């Protein structure tokens, strides 16, 4: 019985992921994310005079010396707005989208169970977070390597790592950003159980990410900052130090787990008591 349960769960996850990545909308969002590093790299390449040191997003002035920095600049630009926007779309659509299409009923008629459906939907959203982040990082590295010279990378501490070591760190970085977005995904999942209008859930999730970042910029609310899910979003720089500072990674994981627990429980409460009418 347990064996059968497990294989059913796995089948559901696989089918959810296939559906998600067969959608044109998903690929449009991934394409838009890939455009960020391409745009940055092309603009820096075309304007040959080079940015004045200390202007623009972080790492921008390092790009002309080492193309691998395109990934980092693109990530700094994508984290506050573009990534939360796409996560909002995917997470907000999870339950509300099915309800809107009238397919939620049929999903629950199959012996899937509501809890399992929530978990499967969340797994799909989490995978999208990783793919989206990796898209920005990998496209950045590729376009940077095509347009600029590439070499050993200077870390924030002034130490230098070789290209293999740098790619190890980029992978860690993608993992860090993915973890950072897990809290937001859980919030999106909960909002999605509240409504049958997916656009509303998407907009609300993306708006919450913006609100949290605004609150995080207000010095008067300093006591609140460590509790905001956006607090460690730009902390990925700690992985670019030598030796790596793990504090923000650990704190971030703890914070995001807290958000997953709270909003997971809320989503469970709402979804398991809800009358499914469509």
């Amino acid at each position: 019985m347990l064996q059968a349960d497990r294989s059913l769960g796995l089948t559901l996850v696989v089918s959810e992921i296939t559906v998600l990545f067969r959608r044109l909308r998903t690929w449009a969002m991934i394409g838009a994310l890939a455009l960020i590093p391409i745009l940055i790299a092309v603009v820096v390449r075309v304007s040959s005079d080079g940015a004045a040191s200390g202007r623009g997003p972080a790492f921008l002035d390092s790009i002309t010396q080492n193309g691998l920095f395109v990934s980092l600049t693109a990530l700094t630009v994508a984290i506050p707005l573009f990534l939360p926007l796409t996560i909002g779309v995917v997470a907000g659509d999870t339950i509300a989208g099915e309800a809107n299409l009238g397919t939620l009923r049929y999903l629950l008629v199959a012996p899937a169970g509501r809890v399992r459906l929530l978990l499967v939907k969340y797994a799909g959203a989490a995978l999208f977070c990783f793919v989206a982040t990796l898209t920005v990082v990998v496209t950045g590295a590729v376009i940077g390597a095509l347009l600029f010279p590439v070499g050993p990378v200077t870390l924030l501490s002034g130490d230098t790592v070789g290209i293999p070591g740098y790619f190890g760190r980029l992978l860690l970085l993608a993992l860090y950003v993915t973890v950072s977005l897990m809290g937001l995904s859980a919030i999106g999942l909960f909002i999605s159980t509240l409504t049958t209008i997916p656009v509303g859930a998407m907009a609300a999730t993306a708006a919450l990410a913006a609100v949290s970042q605004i609150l995080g910029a207000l010095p008067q609310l300093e006591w609140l900052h460590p509790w905001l899910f956006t607090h460690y979003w730009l902390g990925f720089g700690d992985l670019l130090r030598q030796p790596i500072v793990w504090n923000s990674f650990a704190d971030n994981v703890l914070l995001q787990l807290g958000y997953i627990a709270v909003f997971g429980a809320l989503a469970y409460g709402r979804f398991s008591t809800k009358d499914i009418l469509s």
Partner: protein
Amino acid sequence: MNKNWRWLPAGIVPVVIVTAAVSGSAVAEAQPQLPEKTAQELLEFVATSADDAYSGTVEQSSNLGLPDISMATPPGRTSSSDPTSTALELLTGEHTAQVYVDGTEKARVQVLDQLAQRDVVVNGNDAWYYDSESNEAVHAALPDKQTVKADLEAKLQEKAAEYPELQDLPRTPAEVAEVFLARIDPSTEVTVEGTSRVAGRSAYELVLTPEDSATLVGSVSVSVDSETGVPLNVTVLAKGQEEAAFSAGFSSVDFSTPDADIFAFTPPAGATVTEAPTADEVKAELEARQELHQAPAEAQQQPTVIGEGWSTIVKLPAGTAGTLGMNPSAGQAAGMGEIMEIKPGMDPEEVAGAQAMLEQALTEVDGGQALQTSLVSVLITDDGRILAGAVGVDQLVAASRQ
């Protein structure tokens, strides 16, 4: 069917999280039981810890009543790289640093900014400063410690022959502690006030309280690790304030010897590397500048010290700003350009921003402009003298008239 119990987890989870967060900090504040130590024993203990090796994370915060300039700069960027704003930036707001220490010869401090970092590395006779944002490295050759020590010993021996009372100079940590206490006694009360927990370690609280009504400093407390004697935390309280005016301490610490690689620094390819002038060169440069500005008599050029102990006031003579490489405008009010060093190639917007910041911090007082913080006051008189001390502005004004 009543399904409401399914909301139960949504109610329980937040409660569990908040309880865990609150009880976590309550455990951290519990006071450890340690064998009692007198102030002198504790000072001896600190003096023996100089050769220790450790690493850890230091959190520093200050609340000096200065405007927080970190908020005025865009996220992901620290403020400009000129020395004045860097110093002001480090004095305001909060900072986190990674610290690695191996004895007295090797040390590395990494100030962790968001997406940027500043490093100071000392390894034997080499010292490096590296700023990731400007990609600039500065190298300084430190004088050889053995030679300096030998020179000093030789000079001491020479003097000791002339002055017999110098022969009983403090040598051991115990003697150093005794001399320190004897010296500090009339102006300061030194006490051990219980224990505390810092970075998960038990520590003694050494408290220095000035017995001087003029100073702004309320008390200085140092948390000393109970096993190694390494100071783990320093807190300075201003008079009449509950919140610490300045505090720096370990949030985590590890007493194993750091990896030797950490202290080996080579500037990265593409970085601008400059060689810092040696002490002799700085002296020569300052002398040359003094001549250039036709400085008045030698005696007036020396900084003077007024008062003693905690309420000491340092007075820099007129034209100091000029000799420090800025535009002297004798008789004029000290403009911002004189206080701040404006280098060619600096971003004009940054200069304007930093000047506005300084202007915001300065207040107009009788006979000049003053910078008042909760611990230190600085007075720039209209004739270009600079007075500074851990006292109120009114006392600086009074001292400027003497």
